[in-house]
């Protein structure tokens, strides 16, 4: 075994030596083993079999040979260790936390947004069949998922969403809550939010959800705005409330009221919990409901029906993490125009070099704009997100960041669509690709 490891080590060193000008002695580590490119070498590419490279650690991790050239897979533990790297993510705009609650084992419920604020069970809620994949069932007396302390989900605006299933109850139950901040739950079978400022509960008095069926509940919260916070049930707005947060520093929980001690335990099933740092539009809430109803995790969409003359928008964030010393470049492309059979939706006339202002009712087609970033000021040609460009067929750079950044860069993108009245109906598809590289 030692000999095999030695051969493996030797191979990496030789290959590294071929590219000494770039591949600096990278050191990849996990909790169970280390591969240090400065100390090992080999001549991968021979007739060696997978077994020649396979390393199995005491922790069960393995290096699995794949491909004739000796490529190999590094199981969990390496991702965070890669240096001189670039990570690119795209996700719906302002998504701070997303908990599908699909895990059937283990003690962590992963945040599938890039915030990485994972949830940890208290009182062992059980995995059950959910609305989309699996869900968690809570007993109403002692079970919840704690999703982070005071630092997470801080914003003056929120959208909260979840799919819930419960039976008739005469109690108050928290679904997704943060102490002093947001509270979306059930108050005597009615969907409700809690105003921490006045200590009052605002519920959708006409809609009962305690019938043992799955329901999509959502709230868009705008702190301090009179009747500016809206409650939705199954994609339909059912109540306008006034909500004011008193703190952004409380704990967050799924299935209970976030307080010390925990309380208002939920009795029933919860699935697909999402927390946004902004308020989604009614059409976006409707789309979320529609996606879940169809058993899909897909969300954040243009309204299902695009009415000619009334443009639809949708936003997403491109998130970059890199230690590149000279910055990075983002590029965009699409594989085709939005297409349904032989019908297509044309791109807008603007280009990345010369985006054009969107004229509502006049501009037709599909385009994008760049409307904000936490890293650098956006180029003036985008007119603060009012000028739109078509997606090019070849990946073309649209945003460059110079220098080294020390934190996560978030670039806000908005898509916009309008169609002529002669556009045939149907579902149009394409693939939009966001590309990240260093800046040469």
């Amino acid at each position, binding site marked *: 075994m030692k000999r095999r490891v030695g051969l493996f080590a030797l191979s990496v060193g030789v290959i590294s030596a071929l590219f000494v000008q770039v591949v600096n002695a990278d050191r990849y580590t996990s909790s169970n083993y280390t591969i240090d490119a400065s100390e090992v070498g080999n001549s991968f590419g021979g007739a060696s079999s997978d077994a020649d490279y396979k390393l199995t650690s005491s922790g069960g991790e393995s290096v699995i040979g794949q491909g004739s050239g000796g490529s190999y897979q590094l199981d969990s533990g*390496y991702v965070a260790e890669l240096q001189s790297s670039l990570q690119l993510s795209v996700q719906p705009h302002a998504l701070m936390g997303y908990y599908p609650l699909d895990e059937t084992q283990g003690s962590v419920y992963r945040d599938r947004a890039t915030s990485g604020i994972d949830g940890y069970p208290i009182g062992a809620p059980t995995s059950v069949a959910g609305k989309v994949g699996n869900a968690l069932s809570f007993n109403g007396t002692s079970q919840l998922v704690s999703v982070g302390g005071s630092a997470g989900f801080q914003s003056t605006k929120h959208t909260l969403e979840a799919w819930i299933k419960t039976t008739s109850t005469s109690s108050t139950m928290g679904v997704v809550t943060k102490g002093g901040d947001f509270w979306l739950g059930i108050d005597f079978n009615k969907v409700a939010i809690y105003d921490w400022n006045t200590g009052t509960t605002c519920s959708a008095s006409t809609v009962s959800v305690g019938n043992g069926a799955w329901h999509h509940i959502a709230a868009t919260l705008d702190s301090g705005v009179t009747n500016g916070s809206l409650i939705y049930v199954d994609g339909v707005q059912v109540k306008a409330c006034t909500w004011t947060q008193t703190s952004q520093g409380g704990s967050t929980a799924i299935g209970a009221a976030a307080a010390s001690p925990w309380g208002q335990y939920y009795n029933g099933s919860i699935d697909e919990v999402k927390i946004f740092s902004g308020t989604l539009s009614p059409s976006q809430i409707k789309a979320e409901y529609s996606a879940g109803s169809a058993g899909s995790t897909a969300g954040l969409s243009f309204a299902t029906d695009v009415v000619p003359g009334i443009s639809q928008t949708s936003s997403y964030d491109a998130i970059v993490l890199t230690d590149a010393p000279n910055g990075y470049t983002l590029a965009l492309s699409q594989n085709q125009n939005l297409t349904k059979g032989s019908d297509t939706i044309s791109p807008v006339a603007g280009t990345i070099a010369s985006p054009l202002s969107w004229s509502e009712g006049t501009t037709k087609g599909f385009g994008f704009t760049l409307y904000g970033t936490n890293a650098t000021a956006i180029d003036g040609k985008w007119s603060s997100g009012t000028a739109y460009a078509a997606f090019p067929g070849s990946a073309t750079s649209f945003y460059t960041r110079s220098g080294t950044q020390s934190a996560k860069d978030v670039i806000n993108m908005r898509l916009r669509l309008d169609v002529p009245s002669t556009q045939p109906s149907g579902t149009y598809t394409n693939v939009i690709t966001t590309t990240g590289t260093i800046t040469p």
Partner: protein
Amino acid sequence: MKKVLLTLFLAVSVCTTWATDTHAASLKIAPLKYETTLKSGETKKGFVDVSNPEYETVKVTLRVQSFRQIDDDGTLQYYPSAQVSDGIQLDLTSLTLKPRSAMRVYFLLNGNKLPSGDVFAAIFASTEPSARSGAEQSVRVGTLIMLSNGTPSSHSADISFLRASWLQLGDGLRATVGVHNTADERTYTGFFPDISVKAQPYSSTTVKGPLVFAGRTRTVDYKNDGNYFGPVRVIANAGGQPRSTWVFAITGYWVWLFPSIVLAIVAGVIWFRNSQPNISFRR
């Protein structure tokens, strides 16, 4: 009435959908670039590490594309090139990454198959979109490959402009230099020119320029912090015809020393004048 009804019908029947996955689609790649030289007919082997930062299994596609600059802002365009793809052979073109796992994928640079001279390419790893309707999202990350294959391309650059404020105040000298690759735009060659900037009579520095493709002009910011005072001639040279400009510098400690000296002189003159006895003329 018929027209109104027809319009109404069209308005509600025109449907299209757009959807993105609610969860983040992510990929990570390392290293970020390879810069190397291939002798004629030489082959070299390298690798890229592609990792999945998320907690869901993703399908990843790997491919090679060429890239070029398409304007003077440095805008890059990536495009397929059969010859370059043939000359950069990937060990794997598709793979599945489990949550939080990484794959080291080897590739072979083949000097016999690559175009001679400058080669600019990228190895891309992209996610396979999981949504099945509307405008689907994919993320793609790339390692840039910048190499010279066989006989090197000839490179030459000129300074196309040199801009500097005539009065330089602050931490040091500042200027903006435009460097132009004089090769024919159609050759798709490029290089990182060395730009020599002299601040006569004080100092000389060499600035590593950005990648400049044939026919393109890129802008470089020249910064030379230091204590400068008086007229300075700034000269920039990228190998061709140099350009120069005169500035008057008050930088570094001169920013406070110079006014102090002036104040001291003025104060001295005033004191001297005030200290002199009044001269009266008597008849």
